[in-house]
Every structure is written in C-alpha cells, then in structure tokens.
C-alpha cells in the first residue's frame, strides 16, 4: 500500500461545514471529481495535509442542487464548473461560474447521458 486514504461520507447539509473544518485545519484542496453510478452521482472532495489524503464523499442525483465550496476554497470553481458541465450536477453559487462554457462538448453532460453505452467496444478498435 502506497498510502492510507480515508473516505468520510457527508450529506448535502453538512458538506460546507465539513469543508470549512478542513480549511481551518490547513488542508489543501487536492481535487473534486464525480462518478456516475447508475441513478446517482458520487462526488469526492479530496484534501491533503502533510501527505495525509482524506476524501469527503457526497452522493446526489443528476440535476440535484449542491452548494458550491468555492466560498471556502476559491480554487474549487474550476472543478465545480467541470462537474456541472460533464455530469449535470447543479452547483449553486460558484465563485466563477462559466454557465456552461467551461468545456466545449458535443454532447451535454456526456458522463450522465450515455451510461447505457458502457461496456460496449469502441468503434475505433
């Protein structure tokens, strides 16, 4: 095992408080990412301090409203715009909101739109 990684489950109403705790303890926001799992989307907020890696995990439905953490970690705006455009997570109050113009994708919210295609061989193979 290269490193221990802790994952803590959070709810929508406790997310901002938990993120603020990490901020006050001097953690760095490492990344935020989404995973589409059937009908739900799993969001991982990853933090690091002194090479200790911790995740906050929130599960939401596509289109569900989630408060932006960019009020605490300003740099979260890039990740949150990405989540909004690729997964359709409805992030509210992003510090710098690109309103759907962060990426240029042919299909809106591609990761949520075509989960039914998963597992089929690529046409280019």
């Amino acid at each position: 095992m290269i490193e221990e990684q802790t994952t803590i489950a959070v709810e929508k109403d406790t997310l901002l408080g938990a993120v603020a705790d990490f901020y006050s303890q001097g953690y760095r926001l490492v990344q935020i990412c989404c995973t589409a799992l059937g009908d739900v989307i799993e969001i991982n907020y990853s933090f690091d301090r002194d090479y200790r890696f911790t995740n906050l995990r929130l599960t939401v439905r596509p289109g569900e409203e989630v408060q932006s953490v960019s009020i605490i970690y300003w740099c979260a705006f890039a990740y949150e715009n990405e989540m909004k455009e690729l997964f359709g997570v409805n992030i509210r109050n992003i510090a710098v909101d690109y309103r759907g113009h962060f990426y240029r994708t042919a299909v809106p919210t591609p990761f949520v739109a075509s989960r039914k295609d998963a597992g089929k061989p690529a046409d280019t193979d």
Partner: protein
Amino acid sequence: MAQRNIIPFGPQHPVLPEPIHLDLVTEDETVVEAVPSIGFVHRGLEKLVEKKDYQDFVYVAERICGICSFMHGMTYCQAVEEIMGIAVPPRALYLRTVWAELSRVHSHLMWLGLAADAFGFESLFMNCWRLREGVLDIIEATTGGRVIFGSCKIGGVRRDIDDDTMKGIVEKLQAMATEIKRSTDVFLDDYSVQHRLKDVGVIDGEEARRLGTVGPVLRASGIAMDARKIGYAAYRDLKFEPVVEKAGDCYARCRVRVREIFQSIDLIAQAARKMPPGETALKVTGAPEGEFFSRVEQPRGEVIYYVKANGTKNLQRFRVRTPTFANLPAMVRMLKGAGLADVPNIILTVDPCISCIER
C-alpha cells in the same frame, strides 16, 4: 482615469504552442482581471475508459501528454496495482523511477528553452533543447521511443536496463550535468533574465497553498510539498528533499526547475546504485474491484488518477486531475496586477500543459 480594455490572449499565441484563451481585463498597461477559457481540444479520454480493457488503457493514459507520458502511464498502473493488491517487483519500481526522473530532466530542459525563447534569448533556447536531445537519446536507447515510452505496464515494466547500460547512463548524465550547469548559470545569473523574472508574478506560500497549487509553482513559494515524498515507486529508498525557494516570483519558479534537474540526475544515480536484481514484471490476471487515488509528482506537479472498478474489464471511472488544471487558479491570481508585457512570462513560468488539461 485609466482606460479599461479586454485583451484576448490566445488560443493561438507565440509563447504557447497549445490552445488556451485568456480574457485579460486591463486598465492601461495593468491587468486587473484574467478569465481563462479551456476546452478547445478536449479529447474525452476519461470517458473512453468505459469502452477499453483496463490493461490496454495504459496506452491511452500514456498519450494524455507528450512530455510526461511515462508518468501518466505509471500513475495509471499504480492505481490499478493498488486496487488489485499487486506487489510490483522491486527492480521494476527502480526502473520506473529512473524513467520518471529522465522525464523530469527533459521536461525541465524543454521548459527552460521555452522560457528563454519567451524572453528573447534565442541562443539559450537552442542550447537547452540541444542538451535535452541527450536525455531523449537515453530514453530512446532504453525504451525505443522518444515521446511515448510504452515501457510501463500493469504489474511492472516491459523492458529492463542492464547494469552496464545503467552505468553508462549515469556517466553520461554526470558529464551532461557540467554542460547543463553552464546554461542554467545564465538563467540564474544573467542580468537581463533577472530583470524580466524577478518580482514578477509573485504569489506567497499561504495563498498558493489555499489555491490548491502544486509542483514547482508551489515549491517556489516556500511550501515543501512534493508527492515523491509519499514514497511510491523507489522514492522511499532514495535520499532527497523537495527543492524549495521562497520568493514566489517567476525567477524563483525558474530556480526550482533548474535545481530539480540536478536533483533528478542525483536520484537516477542513487537508483542505479541501489537497483536490485530480479524480475521486472508479474503476469496480471483477473479484473480490478475497488478504488484508489494514485498520486505522482510529474515535472509540473502532483497528478491525481482516480480509478474505480467493479470487477469487470472496463473501469467504472477514470479521472485525471492534472497539475496544470490545479495551477489555473494560481495563474489567474498571479496575473492580477501584472504588467501586460509580463503576462507571457508569468503564464510560461507556470509551465502549463494544455494537452494534459484537455485529456
């Protein structure tokens, strides 16, 4: 009263061969706001994982970037190996370390050349790229490729480097170090270079950390964060400390990269001395089930690979957070208050890799 204008920077610009666009809001010659725009050549490689066999996907991961291709492949392999509980042979871990450090040396030499070109020092640019060729020759001799190495696979590496060749590589690099120093001394001592880079694009350590900055940009602001200290590959057996500078300006970022070139040469020499004998790969069967965030220190900083698998040949999720993506907010902050003429230098000292961002 100062006149307010919006000046478009990119997506095609002489100092940046890759497409990124910035709207620079200026008051006279001072930038008061910068709004980045990416996604011009987004490739959707993260999505492709749903249709590729997880073992074949190493080839795709390596093609995310042409500069740190090996490290992309290595980070991906590391994530899958962690999920599957594969104990990679120690010799393979050392070989990965050698190739990773060779990637860092060639990346930093390439960056130094581009930086020299940006501030108008053409002979220095050509000299840095000439030196980089020597490193690429080593990479080609040991992997068969100059850009895409193709030497990393899940469970180990595809090629070995015999002890005599390894000894020759260390000798060549040590000879090159003298030559590299002659060029890097210019970066660190030349008046005109200092004039363009000192006190320009300053970001202090606390702010850099809060903005999620990584790599040489963060270390140039006095924060000793280097993902190699986690101890992946053979780094736990090697002696090194993160290269740190305090000033947080363009010059400090340049200094960090210069010092890291010599640190990498030393790490390769250490790895060559300690490299254990034995096999270089394990046969991997089955399919992964679980998840892992793999972290590797690329030349531009910490890269994160999130891999989630459900026991089938196709991964559920593959996510790459590249160092340039993490450094975007810091770049925006650095540009605020900068002179318009300094914008190219500031952007360049972040060493942005748009190919990585557009994964």
